[in-house]
């Protein structure tokens, strides 16, 4: 029996701009079980990162205007700043897209990796540094005691990302949120970092939320996947099923827009026409409807809810909810 660690219910985060409120996260619900790996995919600006930041309470200048983030039963959106600081880095750790800028250039790497221990465990610097060195070794940094004395600019991109992961793991958090952890790295290093994240998940039992726009990464890493579009979850389910039988036209289109090894020869890639909608005033109905090859008349009228489609998946689509299979025209 797996235990639900994190449950997000109908989360809404808006950013006030002079043109109106941007609904970056618009009613997102999902859950994360202890020890599992959840992928969140979607194109740029669809609310993946804002969802993660809202969980951490770091959504500023955005505002959470609705919903709950239940972490082990406590609603984090109602937690005080002091309570949030205890959660951050202690219970939920986060790693970022660009390892080049996510370490402070003026401090030695070991000092920074040790910082969560000093903040949360109240241990002295020497002990914290010893812990940091041990953790740097565990994430695969050679001669960690030497390397801890280095400054970030002496680290390669991959090593910096390892150091970030080490920093997140020093306090053995239960959830690790990785926001595009490999996007800024070259392909061979990507594979190593993903490998490391997998090992971390297995050895430490850390539940991982992996945010990415790379479907290949999700396929290799995640048990479950959640597809976001225009601030909403449009499809979720076990990765295998979602990839084999997508139940939302957006997922379907995404899968056809990337190259795959088992494709027919000379089969051209099919990009998704058009652009994501403006999140300030979404048209009524399904947000993907203007770009959707399967749209029916109802799609521009009513907004579909995320409902069960098929055995294991949830999808927000009138077409598939009505039982239609998504196939090439």
């Amino acid at each position, binding site marked *: 029996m797996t235990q639900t660690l994190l449950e997000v219910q109908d989360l809404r985060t808006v950013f006030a701009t002079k043109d109106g409120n941007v609904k970056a996260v618009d009613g997102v619900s999902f859950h994360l079980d202890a020890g599992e790996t959840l992928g969140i995919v979607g194109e740029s600006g669809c609310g993946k990162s804002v969802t993660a930041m809202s969980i*951490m309470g*770091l959504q500023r200048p955005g505002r959470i205007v609705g919903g709950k983030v239940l972490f082990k039963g406590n609603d984090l959106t109602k937690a005080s700043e002091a309570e*949030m*600081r*205890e*959660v*951050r*880095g*202690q219970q939920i*750790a*986060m*790693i*970022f*897209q*660009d390892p080049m*800028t*996510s*370490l*402070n*250039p*003026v*401090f*030695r790497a070991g000092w920074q990796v040790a*910082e*969560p221990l000093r*903040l*949360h465990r109240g241990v002295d610097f020497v002990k914290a540094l010893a812990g940091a060195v041990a953790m740097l*070794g*565990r*994430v*695969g940094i*050679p*001669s960690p005691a*030497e*390397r801890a*004395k*280095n*400054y970030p600019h*002496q680290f390669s991109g991959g090593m910096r990302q390892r150091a*970030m992961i080490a*920093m*997140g793991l020093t306090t053995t958090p239960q959830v690790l949120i990785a926001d595009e952890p490999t996007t800024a790295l070259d392909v061979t290093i990507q594979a190593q970092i993903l*490998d*490391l994240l997998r*090992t*971390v998940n297995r*050895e430490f039992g850390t539940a991982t939320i992996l945010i990415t726009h790379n479907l290949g990464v999700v396929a290799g890493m995640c048990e479950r996947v959640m597809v976001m579009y225009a601030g909403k979850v449009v499809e979720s389910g076990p990765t295998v099923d979602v990839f084999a039988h997508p139940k939302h036209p957006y997922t379907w289109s995404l899968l056809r827009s990337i190259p795959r090894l088992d494709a027919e020869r000379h089969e051209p890639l099919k990009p998704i026409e058009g652009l994501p909608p403006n999140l300030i005033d979404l048209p009524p109905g399904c947000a993907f409807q203007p770009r959707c090859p399967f749209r029916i008349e109802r799609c521009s009228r009513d907004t579909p809810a995320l409902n069960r489609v098929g055995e294991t998946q949830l999808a927000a689509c009138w077409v598939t909810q009505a039982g239609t299979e998504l196939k090439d025209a």
Partner: protein
Amino acid sequence: MIDPGHAVERELPSPAFEGESRRPAQSYWNESWERLRSNRIGIVCGSLILVLALIAIAAPLFTQFLTHYEPFRLDLDNTFQPPGHPHLLGTDELGRDTLTRLIYGGRVTLGVALLTVALSLTLGTTVGLAAGFYGRWIDDLLMRFVDVVLAFPAIFLFILMAILFRPTPITLAAIIASVGWGGVARLVRGEVLSVKQRDFILATQSIGARDGRLIVRHLLPNVLPVLIVAASLGVGQIILIEAALDFLGLGIQPPTASWGNMLTNSQSYFFHSVWLVYFPGITIFVTVLAANLFGNAVRDAFDPRLK
């Protein structure tokens, strides 16, 4: 070990890697210091300032063993002595030894400059950090106040203050700093705005650090380079302002010697005893030039934007 297989594989010593890891840790500060050291003009000027400062600190020693005079001692039998023996740089209209007064004046002038820099950096940095980090209305409020300070005609403030308070080195430093901190605040705020965008600030928040820690431990060290540059370039400017105020009679009042008021004093005797103008003038000129050149060298070495 998380994964013995991989860890062993990764720890296999590859020659290139070993070599790299044996390089000594070069911090930003080490590198900047190396760059500064290799700038000959900068080092000469910096040393000159240092020597002047040491002379000023050790003024009583110097005057006792070198000039054998005290700054206020009148000697009406020996007024307007030209440079020579026993008065190395001559005497003024009251028979006071010029070199002695220059050394004591250096105490005042350099002390005021140092204190002014310290005050305006402290205030400017605090305001700039707060405005840049918190943004929104705090930023608006603080920065509009800075605009007001910068728009204020400084000379009127100096005159007013000279009337209200009898200028001592400390009040003078406070007055000059009260108009000087605005520029520092702007500089720091701008730098904070740029540093704040970088992920490590978010990363530090994400490990649960307080704002105070974030500002002091993470933001401040990253704006320190611009502060060092601002401080070293500011010294020369402040010495000039101080000298100008003294010259106008708005600064240090006689009989306390300062380079500026020695100049004022001597202007009446320009055709009569020109060395009285030369020596304080040259001292100010050389000090300001050295301070500015040193400031430039520090900027070349420390300013992260010039790399």
